[in-house]
């Protein structure tokens, strides 16, 4: 039975529940016990009541505190990650009917938006006695990522965002490589706040080793990120300093290679991958250490989530699904039966469905389709390979061909003769496991791959190499 959470978040910090719990940021921390009886918003909380608030803080700690304070008070919160382009802010603000901004940035940065109220976000807590208790069911508006143009706004509330959370470990100390303004990071924020734990926040621009050092200092027990985040973390010597009990992947396809790497690196940790999207919420978690998910998930569903595969793509229906897109000419989020089409393509192999890529990311090689991600999974099986990115390259014969950028585990060999042997082996391995048109025609060895602010490999539209 689905338990619907309707109490404002502040209730989870009251009384004894707050003891010993913290948000730890890169530049400071906030004790839940202080937050419970105080405010960071310098007496403006009453003014923000009932408003549509653009929460645009640079600092994640300031944002985390404001989320707690505003839930139940504001009518609506727009969770604006720091990497949102300035030119999109006006459209976002208009679509969300924003009439107040909470930010640690200069008010002048937002002058062009013409928003009447600007409240400074801070991480210092004033003890003011009992802060106003909100009764409102605040809308949480998240921005979708990964598309061109202005991001779409997706409407959730505390009920849909906390629906996937089951009571688990006692007082977990969560860490995440995500920004908490993104769905993947926000899930971890809720797991910490609602699940009786603490949270170690990431910080844009912080060196991976420094972040891992903070995770170690605060004794992280549960840590989450995308496969790209994890590959980057495991390349740092500081990864040896942490010993999480639970390692979680989401946001990108978790292939067998990264799952095996994490299990070998953290032999005492449970390693799980979750499927979630901003629109559909968390659909399911896979904890058997294998890539993909069992067909039984589709046949019998996963708790309150119904799963179906139609035209090869994964479709979900549940209370965790966002209510709707918020904008003037938004497309329908749900089909007639209430399912969201995730756009993630799956393929049945034996008793398991495997993710093979995005519906829109297909490379067309002479009329035959290739999902870059399935080629990457094949390349990543080579023991010398650390990560790979497969993309289309324009071609006069077949329209496009498949090419790959590959990062080797031992990056000192890149650019040397040793790579010729590795290249032949990778091609031979791909030929064994993939149809001819999916085998990369050209392999380029590179020192690193670009990872976006959302922790995913940066995939660009087809273009020349």
């Amino acid at each position, binding site marked *: 039975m689905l338990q619907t959470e309707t109490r404002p978040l502040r209730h989870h910090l009251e009384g004894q529940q707050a003891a010993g719990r913290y948000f730890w940021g890169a530049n400071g921390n906030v004790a839940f016990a202080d937050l419970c009886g105080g405010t960071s918003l310098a007496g403006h909380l009453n003014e923000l009541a009932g408003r549509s608030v653009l929460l645009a803080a640079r600092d994640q700690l300031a944002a985390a505190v404001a989320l707690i304070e505003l839930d139940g008070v504001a009518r609506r919160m727009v969770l604006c990650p720091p990497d949102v382009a300035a030119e999109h802010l006006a459209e976002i603000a208009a679509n969300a009917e924003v009439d107040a901004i909470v930010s640690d940035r200069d008010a002048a940065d937002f002058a062009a938006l013409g928003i009447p109220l600007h409240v400074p976000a801070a991480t210092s807590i004033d003890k003011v006695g009992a802060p106003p208790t909100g009764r409102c069911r605040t809308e949480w508006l998240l921005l979708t990522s990964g598309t061109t143009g202005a991001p779409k706004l997706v409407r959730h509330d505390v009920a849909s965002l906390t629906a996937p959370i089951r009571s688990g470990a006692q007082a977990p100390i969560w860490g995440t490589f995500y920004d908490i303004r993104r769905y993947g990071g926000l899930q971890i924020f809720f797991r910490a706040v609602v699940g009786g734990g603490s949270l170690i926040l990431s910080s844009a621009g912080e060196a991976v080793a420094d972040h891992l050092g903070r995770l170690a200092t605060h004794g992280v027990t549960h840590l989450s990120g995308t496969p790209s985040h994890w590959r980057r973390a495991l390349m740092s010597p500081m990864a040896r300093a942490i010993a999480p009990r639970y390692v979680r992947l989401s946001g990108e396809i978790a292939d067998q290679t990264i799952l095996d790497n994490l299990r070998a690196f953290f032999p005492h940790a449970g390693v799980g991958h979750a499927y979630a999207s901003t629109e559909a919420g968390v659909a399911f978690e896979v904890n058997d250490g294998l890539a993909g998910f069992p067909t039984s998930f589709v046949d019998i569903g996963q708790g309150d989530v119904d799963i179906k595969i139609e035209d090869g793509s994964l479709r979900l229906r549940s209370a965790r699904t966002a209510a709707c897109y918020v904008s003037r000419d938004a497309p329908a989020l749900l089909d007639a039966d209430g399912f969201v089409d995730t756009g993630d393509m799956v393929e049945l192999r034996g008793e398991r469905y495997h993710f093979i890529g995005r519906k829109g990311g297909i490379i067309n090689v*002479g009329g035959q389709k290739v999902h870059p991600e399935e080629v990457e999974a094949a390349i990543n099986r080579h023991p010398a390979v650390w990560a790979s990115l497969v993309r289309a390259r324009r*071609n006069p*014969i077949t329209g496009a061909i498949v090419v790959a950028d590959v990062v080797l585990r031992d990056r000192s060999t890149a650019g040397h003769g040793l790579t010729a042997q590795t290249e032949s082996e990778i091609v*031979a391995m791909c*030929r064994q496991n993939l149809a001819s*048109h999916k*085998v990369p*025609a*050209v392999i380029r060895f590179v020192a690193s791959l670009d990872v976006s602010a959302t922790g995913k490999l940066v995939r660009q539209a087809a273009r020349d*190499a």
Partner: protein
Amino acid sequence: MSIKLTVISEIEQIAQQHQKWLAPLTDDSILMNTGLDSLCFAVLVARLEDRLGVDPFSTSDDISFPVTLGDFVRVYENAAN
């Protein structure tokens, strides 16, 4: 390595990787009879672009695809000049 030798070495490598039986290569060899399929030619053009720095089939609109190996090599020689 001359352009001709570069082309032949790439053809031989691609044939081997794609497990194609390759007919003996001469200037008069008809490309479509060499044993390579269109995917192999697509790969060949991409690799030659990396090695020689030109893709004559994309940079010019009026090049018809050559019939013989000799014609194919000449297209690259002309583009390189």
